């Protein structure tokens, strides 16, 4: 526990360290699978084939990097916003161990092929149980801290945190319901189209409760801290919050357009996806309007760039997403490379940029020092953005091109291109994507180097004062 502040930040440091490690693993595996799609010789059976590595990539990215960082930052934010120390620092330390155990087990069991096959819910039931224990510990600790808070009013970030805690719990429990056969094998409790509908209710709300509400909680806290001006509208924040968590739950079936799931479920999903633009953009505008008279900070304060680009990609993501949810457009781009383009604009441009910003903000404060190099942070920023744009843009073009070819029909009703003719057209784009991934990887190394240097200067105890001008 920090004697000055009374807050215990050790566990935040621990989670940050490990989330960065898992983030690196996720990107390394991402780059590997992007090369496997070009050079199938890079599959090393049985453990390291594309089919087994892709879930390792998504799990390491979403759970290791994403959730790991959220845990770090939620503990930090909650203590500040409640003005009370963590309810149980011991439990939080145990949670860090359990978290790492779960991620390691996830990687090992997925490589061995223990897989429930549902996207983002691949882990087999024994690991699922550990995940549930992990989440309960986390939720109880955060919630108890909130219960005994010294600040009556709960700031927006805390609502998003609470929504995340209950939302993830409900989703995870339902979609992982299964009939175990052995320790490493189980069957889903639901069958066929029911199973699909439950899965995408889960899948899309994993986007809501893991890739949207936690980064928003982080954005709403660290962004005003960084700029030094409060968020533009509290009222808009409230309305956006309630409508966001209301609408998201209706939209799962936009992943199932044109499938045997009943039409009315699909239509509801499509309609709610479109109205979801409003609460999503309310947060975007809240960010932009807060910058009124402050835009000069984009040049002067490197961190502001991360936040503003991050919220901008969130804005683009929440326009593109609803478009994909429209039946006619879905008919075209569903199942193509367009979708990984969408996914990575969100994952890299929105979620990761916000997490980087939070980490850059936190590390110097946690280690009582200054950031080692703002120049390197800027280099990291630009390379990450360029890598991500190459990734997304090449995949959008690839997706549209393949879709156009797949749907091309001759006058006599036969198909104009065979499947392989469409696939061979994709190779150049897959090369570009892999190149974008490598650039992104380089940016990540720069980031990690910068953070290590910063931590070292802090633990050397050289300069206990910080003066980033951003507090």
């Amino acid at each position, binding site marked *: 526990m920090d004697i000055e502040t009374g807050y215990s930040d050790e566990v935040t440091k621990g989670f940050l360290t490990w989330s960065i490690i898992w983030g690196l693993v996720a990107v390394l595996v991402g780059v590997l699978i992007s090369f496997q799609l070009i050079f199938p010789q890079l599959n090393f059976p049985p453990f390291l084939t594309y089919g087994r590595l892709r879930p390792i990539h998504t799990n390491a990215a979403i759970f290791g990097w994403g959730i790991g960082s959220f845990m770090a930052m939620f503990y930090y934010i909650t203590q500040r916003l409640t003005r009370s120390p963590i309810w149980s620092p011991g439990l939080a330390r145990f949670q860090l161990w359990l978290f790492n155990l779960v991620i390691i087990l996830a990687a090992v069991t997925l490589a061995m092929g223990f897989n429930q*096959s549902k996207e983002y819910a691949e882990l087999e039931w024994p690991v699922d149980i550990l995940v549930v224990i992990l989440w309960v510990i986390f939720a109880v600790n955060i919630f108890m801290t909130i219960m005994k808070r010294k600040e009556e009013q709960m700031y927006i970030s805390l609502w998003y945190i609470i929504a995340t805690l209950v939302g993830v719990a409900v989703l995870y429990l339902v979609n992982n319901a299964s*009939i175990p056969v052995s320790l490493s094998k189980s069957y889903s409790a639901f069958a066929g189209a029911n199973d699909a509908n439950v899965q995408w209710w889960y899948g899309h709300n994993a986007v809501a409760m893991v890739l949207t509400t936690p980064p928003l909680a982080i954005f709403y806290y660290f962004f005003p801290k960084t700029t030094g001006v409060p968020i533009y509208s509290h009222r808009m924040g*409230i309305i956006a919050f309630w409508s966001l968590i209301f609408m998201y*739950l209706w939209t799962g079936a936009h992943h199932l357009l044109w499938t045997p799931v009943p039409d009315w479920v699909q239509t509801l999903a499509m309609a709610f996806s479109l109205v979801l633009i409003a609460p999503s953009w309310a947060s975007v505008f809240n960010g932009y309007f807060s910058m009124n008279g402050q835009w000069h900070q984009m040049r002067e304060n490197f961190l502001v760039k991360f936040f503003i680009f991050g919220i901008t990609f969130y804005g683009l993501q929440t326009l593109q997403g609803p478009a994909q949810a429209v039946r006619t457009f879905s008919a075209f781009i569903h199942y193509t490379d367009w979708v990984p383009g969408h996914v990575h604009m969100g994952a890299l441009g929105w979620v990761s940029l916000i997490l980087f910003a939070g980490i850059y903000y936190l590390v110097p404060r946690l280690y009582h020092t200054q950031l080692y190099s703002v120049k390197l942070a800027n280099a990291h920023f630009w390379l990450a953005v360029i890598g991500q744009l190459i990734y997304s843009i090449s995949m959008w073009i690839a997706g549209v091109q393949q879709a156009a070819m797949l749907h091309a029909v001759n006058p006599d009703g036969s198909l104009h291109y065979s499947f392989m003719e469409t696939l061979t057209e994709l190779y150049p784009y897959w090369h570009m994507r892999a190149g974008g991934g490598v650039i992104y990887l380089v940016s990540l190394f720069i980031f990690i180097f910068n953070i290590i240097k910063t931590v070292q200067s802090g633990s050397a105890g050289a300069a206990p004062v910080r003066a980033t001008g951003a507090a």
Partner: protein
Amino acid sequence: MLNLLEKKPILLLLAAVVVIMIGTTVTMIAPFKWINDPSLKIAGVKPYTPLQLEGRDIYIREGCNNCHTQTVRPLVADVARYAPGSTDGYSKVGEFVYDQPHLWGSRRTGPDLARIGGKYPDAWHNKHMEEPRSMVPKSNMPAYAFLKQPLDTSLTEKKMKALGFPYTPAELEAVKGKTEMDAMVAYLQKLGNDIPWRKAAAAAPLVGELKNPSAGNAAAVTDGKKLYEENCAQCHGADLKGDIGVALAELTKPEAELFSTVYQGMERLGMPAFGDALGKEKIWKVITYISSRKGQK
């Protein structure tokens, strides 16, 4: 009201749960009443046999669903490509009632497999799984030669029981001694095979006079050669001397008959239908090429 919530965490928590549960109830819980309704049953669809189920589990273990979907959408191009020859061969609810979990997938890096059963002979699958590029040169599918290892059958009965599928002792016995590859191929051959989409497909007639428009045309021979190498060589051999399929260079049948065979395929004999994938013009070019090779050594 909203301002009150900001000061009462328990109330906020409960309110959030209620708000989340509204959409959940309507779009996730309620559809259980409509989906898998008995009236949507398809008579031919049977539970998996022990061997097919083991194959399905390997499909899951290897994550084939990361590259392959198993739903044909009711779109012109989807039906023509993945349920060729039919007009309503797209996927229906009743096909999936025994699928726990569903394997619809979200990405088609490779083609849809919902109707793969019966499209190719077992021999094709064996070779293709072992080294996809030996059959389809530019494929990026991983090689699965290691599936030739013996199948672990210790859990087979338990799995059948867990899913409530019927089985006979003879079926269980038959699984013993099989390889994982056998199981995988048995599963692939079942996909879409117990659904009546093919009957409609077979009925689609070839109308009009069957006369080769590109007969003797030298450019057509060149085009036909390329088409042959891409679509036929894997089974009939690069030299037309046969492999999985017959030696085409030795056939003496009239062109019109060859054309209808290629157009409609030979169901259950392992000759796929190319009518939808290639169209008449391209098929005639291939036939022209084959004719040009007749009698050549």
